[in-house]
């Protein structure tokens, strides 16, 4: 292109011709580029400058004065650009130099094309890297493989940045040279970043040194490495933490598995111990009415002030309960008292109404009201032997049913001093009848509830504090009973208190772990073991995976101590995370469970978070225990895994070659995992069996029959148990068994404790409506010859006769005054058809349905013993009704003749027998119409009625509680749930943990052996065959676990049985001693028996439960799960065997 052409083009370009400019660009680009390069030296910069020059030229070509001077003008621009560049470059030359260095470091290195696939090349590369001087190698691995910065590398190898940089450069140069030398024969080269090369070597397991035959060299190099981590200063922890974080971020799944077990353990422990505290709070709330540890009974009101002075400050006296005496109706007496402290009044739960405020007002417990047979309501008047009061409140059953010990005495039955509830658990006793007003004036004695931690620092709740004892003794207290469980002794002592003794009695509250808490502890312990195993299993796997990285770190000169420091830091961080999560989760779970319990099971809304020393004194702090567990499990896991890792697998003895299947098993064998799996599964199995037994025991009870064989009777029998019901429509029936335990006055209507039969909900409601009339009828035989009958109606003492008489109608008064004997009996009603069936059992007289229905005759049914009457005998049969429960307000007397005496044989039809006979030795029997004719309200209609029939015949029923079968089941379920919800939960979590460990194990075993299994496939083993073999191998674990668990359970049962026998023996001995009046010995033996009973859950009858069926079920489930899981794990095997082999090889 000549000058003219250029000028011409420039002119065109000036006029906006882009094509012309493009031609100029093409012509001058190389020239400007060369010019720029000469000026700035760098190719990159030259390129930039050239581009910038042309851009500027294009923009400002309009300002070009003469087209001929285009070339000079262009170079001018270029020169300016160059000058600008050099100016800027000068400013950050230093930075740029560094950047250039770094860029040089990350430049790819030329490697043989097949470096990534050819093992040969890899090994060659390996030896190249191995041949580097140790400091260079260290620097290189840290920089390229671990992605540390040059500064960090410098810090790690203990030098400055410049030096590190140099080392890295030299290392690169050496590697480059070596590689070129090695594969000089025209091999294809590919550019590869060095970091990828190192990573590739590591994947192949070559970098670890263990796989190649250079172990010795590596060792020597490692020892000779001058670096050292030991010289590291402040940056050490950070760098070590860096390694750790890097590993975990690459192995999130392992981290999740590890934390799953750890967090769950921490949460389970935290939650369980919170539950224990909660349970304890509820238990104390149920059973103890005090806020403090020491309850001091002060025999005389005058001594009260002195006690306050001696023992308390304002803080310590939480309330005084004045016991003013005993009150009751008839013979049953209960403590009556007042409380002066609103706080103490407030904690008493009321079913309805309020607590009394004046002396004329009264609040009574529901159970006690039932005992009185009082069916009135709040607002009614109630007459006790201490006077007539206005009933202002009914105390809920929760409160007073836990204190039946309040029944003080009963002369007739001599039962008053039995301070034990049904489950033989002694209770602390308190009034369940409260009046208002100032009780201090006429109190017989008062209970001061103390809570004085200032004077008596809390030591141990199970044994009284010496200091307290000393203090009280010094101040004139006569210490008597060690704890409230010896109520009888307390009571005896009360009776002996003389008025002039100053202070006589101190009862220590002996508060112990509740039975539920004990069980909870066992299961928490079991789940902790499983969690520890699970954590160890996971860690073991993780450590195996990290072996390569670790040996590399060791090779670059990290001392053993440093490795330990690193693991410790890691362990600490993990513990921190795990604990925080666990505590949060545990607390949350506890709160949620409590909420659910409160709403679904009517449990008390008390949480386990408490500082109440009564609770904290007995149970361990949930958070501390959880934290300790969390720390412990990881520490153990780390120590254990660190010990196991790196140990060479022991090769078996060289014997004759094994059979094919043994060979497969041998390959598959993973002792560590198998042991952990077996242990986990055994524990779960044991837990499930134990849980089953606990539950089984709540559904019924074992009793010995006549033959001495143990029979299990369910509390609810949905199939109506022994009753062989023939009629199809009798699907729902009801059975009520009213027992009159203590004569006329004790009208508690007890359900048959052994068995409930039920009716459907609708009928139950109908019945309930009918029965809520409050009628309490009773029949009795009022006139009798000389024959003594059982069940004499006990209106024993003159006082009682008077009392009943006062509350009775005129006829009844006359009857009582006449001094005629009354014998309680029962009248049963049956339909004609049923009665006709009895004709074959008549032993005297004959059945005349007509006369029965007219009320003229009744039948006398004898079930046991000799008949007391013969046909034709005349009786006065009385039927009483009462609304208040005491006195006879409505009396019907009628004269009837015994039409026939029927003796029921023992082997007669059960349904029939049930329909016409009471469980008592004898009863009267008539028809419904007959009973109605003579107004016999107290008759019980006991024929099994179908749903449709029952409605019409109800008026003859009595005031018992009615439950439908379903309601009954629900109630029992609720009771059981209340008792076992927390245990169930812990078992559930435990199983979750255990199964996780087990499942993990199965998958892990197969994954870890992918290589071996794939080789077997390659040489011709069908997948099916391998799977079958491995499944069979796996099933051995459930087999061993089931057998172990069953065996252990049998052992536990034997222990319990043994304890039970001992318990029985001690009780018998105690009774003997008591009979001989040897009370001290009696108490000793009794206490011993109680201890055994609590320790070995003797009350549970668990030794009777057969664990075989649940074991088989659990075993079957485990087998199925194992089979399915093995199948699933085998899904990882693809048709591409070669791929599996190479994948597995890498894993190895």
């Amino acid at each position, binding site marked *: 292109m000549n000058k003219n052409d250029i000028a011409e083009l420039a002119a065109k370009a000036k006029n906006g011709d882009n094509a012309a400019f493009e031609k100029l660009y093409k012509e001058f680009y190389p020239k400007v580029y060369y010019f720029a390069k000469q000026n700035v030296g760098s190719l990159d910069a030259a390129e930039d400058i050239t581009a910038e020059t042309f851009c500027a030229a294009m923009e400002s070509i309009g300002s070009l004065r003469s087209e001929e001077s285009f070339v000079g003008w262009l170079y001018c621009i270029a020169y300016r650009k160059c000058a600008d560049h050099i100016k800027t470059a000068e400013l950050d030359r230093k930075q740029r130099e560094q950047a250039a260095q770094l860029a040089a470091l990350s430049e790819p290195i030329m490697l043989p*094309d*097949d470096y990534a*696939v*050819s*093992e*040969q090349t890899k090994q060659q590369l390996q030896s190249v890297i191995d041949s580097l001087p140790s400091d260079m190698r260290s620097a290189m691995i840290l920089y390229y493989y671990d992605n540390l910065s040059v500064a960090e590398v410098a810090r790690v190898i203990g030098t400055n940045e410049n030096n590190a940089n140099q080392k890295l450069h030299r290392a690169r140069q050496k590697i480059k040279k070596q590689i070129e030398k090695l594969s000089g024969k025209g091999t*294809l080269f590919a550019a590869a970043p060095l970091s990828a090369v190192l990573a590739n070597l590591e994947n192949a397991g070559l970098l670890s040194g263990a796989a190649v035959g250079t172990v010795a060299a590596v060792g020597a190099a490692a020892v000779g490495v001058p670096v050292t981590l030991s010289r590291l200063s402040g940056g050490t922890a950070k760098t070590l933490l860096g390694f750790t974080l890097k590993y975990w971020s690459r192995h999130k799944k392992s981290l999740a598995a590890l934390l799953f077990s750890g967090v769950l353990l921490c949460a389970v422990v935290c939650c369980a111990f919170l539950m224990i505290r909660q349970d304890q709070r509820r238990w104390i709330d149920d059973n103890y009415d005090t806020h403090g540890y020491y309850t001091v009974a002060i025999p005389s009101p005058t001594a009260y002030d002195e006690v306050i002075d001696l023992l308390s400050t304002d803080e310590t006296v939480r309330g005084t309960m004045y016991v003013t005496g005993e009150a009751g109706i008839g013979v049953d007496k209960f403590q009556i008292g007042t409380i002066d402290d609103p706080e103490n009044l407030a904690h008493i739960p009321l079913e309805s109404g309020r607590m009394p405020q004046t002396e004329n007002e009264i609040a009574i417990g529901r159970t006690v009201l039932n005992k009185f047979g009082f069916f009135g309501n709040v607002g009614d008047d109630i007459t006790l032997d201490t006077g007539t009061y206005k009933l202002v409140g009914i105390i809920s059953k929760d409160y007073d049913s836990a204190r039946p010990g309040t029944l003080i005495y009963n002369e007739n039955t001599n039962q008053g001093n039995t301070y034990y509830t049904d489950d033989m658990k002694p209770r602390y006793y308190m009034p369940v009848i409260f009046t208002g007003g100032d009780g201090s004036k006429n109190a017989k004695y008062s209970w001061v509830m103390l809570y004085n931690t200032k004077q008596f620092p809390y030591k141990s709740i199970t044994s009284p504090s010496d200091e307290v004892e000393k203090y009280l003794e010094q101040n004139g207290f006569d210490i008597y009973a060690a704890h409230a469980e010896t109520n009888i002794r307390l009571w005896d002592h009360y009776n002996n208190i003389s008025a002039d003794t100053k202070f006589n009695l101190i009862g220590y509250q002996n508060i112990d772990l509740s039975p539920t808490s004990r069980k909870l502890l066992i299961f928490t312990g079991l789940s902790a073991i499983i969690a520890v195993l699970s954590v160890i299993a996971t860690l073991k796997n993780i450590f195996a995976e990290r072996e390569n990285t670790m040996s590399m770190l060791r090779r670059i000169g990290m001392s053993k101590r440093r490795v330990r420091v690193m693991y410790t830091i890691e362990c600490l961080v993990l513990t921190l995370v795990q604990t925080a999560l666990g505590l949060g989760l545990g607390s949350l779970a506890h709160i949620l469970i409590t909420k659910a319990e409160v709403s679904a099971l009517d449990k008390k809304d008390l949480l386990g978070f408490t500082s109440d020393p009564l609770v904290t004194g007995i149970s361990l702090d949930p958070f501390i225990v959880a934290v300790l567990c969390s720390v412990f499990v990881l520490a153990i896991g780390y120590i254990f895994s660190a010990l196991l890792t790196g140990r060479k697998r022991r*090769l078996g003895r*060289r014997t004759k*070659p*094994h*059979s*094919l299947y043994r*060979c497969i098993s*041998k*390959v598959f*064998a993973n002792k560590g995992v198998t042991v952990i799996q077996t242990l986990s599964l055994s524990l779960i199995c044991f837990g499930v069996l134990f849980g089953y037994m606990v539950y089984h025991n709540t559904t019924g009870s074992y009793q010995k029959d006549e033959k001495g064989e143990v029979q299990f009777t369910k509390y609810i029998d949905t199939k109506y148990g022994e009753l062989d019901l023939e009629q199809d429509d009798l699907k729902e029936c009801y059975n009520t068994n009213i027992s009159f335990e203590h004569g006329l006055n004790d009208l508690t209507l007890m359900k048959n404790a052994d068995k409930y039969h039920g009716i459907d909900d609708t009928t139950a409601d109908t019945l309930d409506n009918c029965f809520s009339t409050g009628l309490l009828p009773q029949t009795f035989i009022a006139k009798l010859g000389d024959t003594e009958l059982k069940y004499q109606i006990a209106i024993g003492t003159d006082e009682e006769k008077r009392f009943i008489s006062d509350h009775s109608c005129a006829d009844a008064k006359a009857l009582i005054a006449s001094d005629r004997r009354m014998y309680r009996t029962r009248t049963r009603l049956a339909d004609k058809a049923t009665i006709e069936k009895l004709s074959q059992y008549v032993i005297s007289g004959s059945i005349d349905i007509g006369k029965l229905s007219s009320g003229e005759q009744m039948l006398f049914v004898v079930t046991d013993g000799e008949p007391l009457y013969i046909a034709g005998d005349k009786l006065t049969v009385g039927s009483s009704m009462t609304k208040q429960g005491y006195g006879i307000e409505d009396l019907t007397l009628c004269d009837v003749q015994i039409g026939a005496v029927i003796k029921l044989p023992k082997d007669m039809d059960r349904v029939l027998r049930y329909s016409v006979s009471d469980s008592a030795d004898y009863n009267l029997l008539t028809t419904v119409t007959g009973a109605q004719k003579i107004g016999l309200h107290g008759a019980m209609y006991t024929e099994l009625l179908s749903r449709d029939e029952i409605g019409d015949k109800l008026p003859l029923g009595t005031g018992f509680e009615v439950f439908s079968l379903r309601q009954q089941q629900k109630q029992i379920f609720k009771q059981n749930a209340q008792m076992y919800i927390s245990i169930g939960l812990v078992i559930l979590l435990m199983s979750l943990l255990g199964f996780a460990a087990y499942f993990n194990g199965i998958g892990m075993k197969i994954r870890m052996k992918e*290589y*071996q299994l794939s*080789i*077997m*496939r*390659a*040489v*011709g*083993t*069908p*997948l*099916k*065959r391998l799977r079958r073999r491995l499944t069979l191998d796996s099933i051995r674990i459930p087999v061993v676990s089931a057998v172990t668990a069953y065996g252990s359970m049998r052992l536990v049962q034997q222990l319990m049985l043994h304890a039970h026998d001992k318990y029985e023996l001690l009780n018998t001995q105690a009774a003997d001693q008591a009979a001989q009046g040897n009370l001290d010995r009696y108490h000793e033996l009794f206490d011993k028996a109680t201890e055994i009973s609590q320790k070995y859950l003797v009350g549970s009858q668990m030794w009777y439960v057969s664990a075989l069926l649940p074991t088989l079920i659990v075993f079957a489930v485990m087998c199925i799960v194992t089979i399915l899981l093995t199948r699933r794990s085998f899904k990882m095997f693809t*048709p*591409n*065997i*070669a*791929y599996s*082999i190479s994948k597995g*090889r890498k894993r*190895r």
Partner: protein
Amino acid sequence: MIKTQNLTKTYGKGEGKVTALGGVDITIKDGEMVAIIGKSGSGKSTLLNLLGGLDKATEGKVFYNDTDLSTLNDTKLSEFRLKNIGFVFQFFDLIPELTAEENVLFPAKLAKKKEIAESDLYTALDITDRVKHYPSEMSGGQQQRAAIARALINDPDVILCDEPTGNLDKASGEEVMSLLKKLNKEQNKTVIIVTHDSDIASQCSRIIELSDGRAVN
């Protein structure tokens, strides 16, 4: 006779699809000793795996005389491999938990072979004194000889070798090669060797070169 028909193997789907083999038609006669060569990534190992039934072809078929491998299920294919094919891998791939002897006898036991001339085999392979040892206690050459013994124990007609000398030093590699040659000559076994070593390839009676998943000649 081994014959492939339009043998194709692709990995992945859609845009990431990689064709390892794109329609290979080759025929190998009984008693031939064939080397399959090619650059890395040319599909030679894939071809060998497909020939040995270690992988399933995406398309096309492999015939052993009249048997079409693609019609066999895992169990039948395993049995076929067991009886007709012996594999020799580059990494020997002995099962580390088993002794050399157990490794060698494994296929024989699997095939329920009663009479096994293993001692002859061991003598021939010069590993008699190492048979009770575990692979980790043996040298590379010994391991590879044991692997060959394992491949031969069921007297298969075809021996497939994937870089059999790749992990061996020169001397051991030569030994292995002469062994394979001997088997080919004396027992008329069909030997197919995948290699990138031209020395080895030159010792075979025929060379099949793969390039970009196709047989060049």
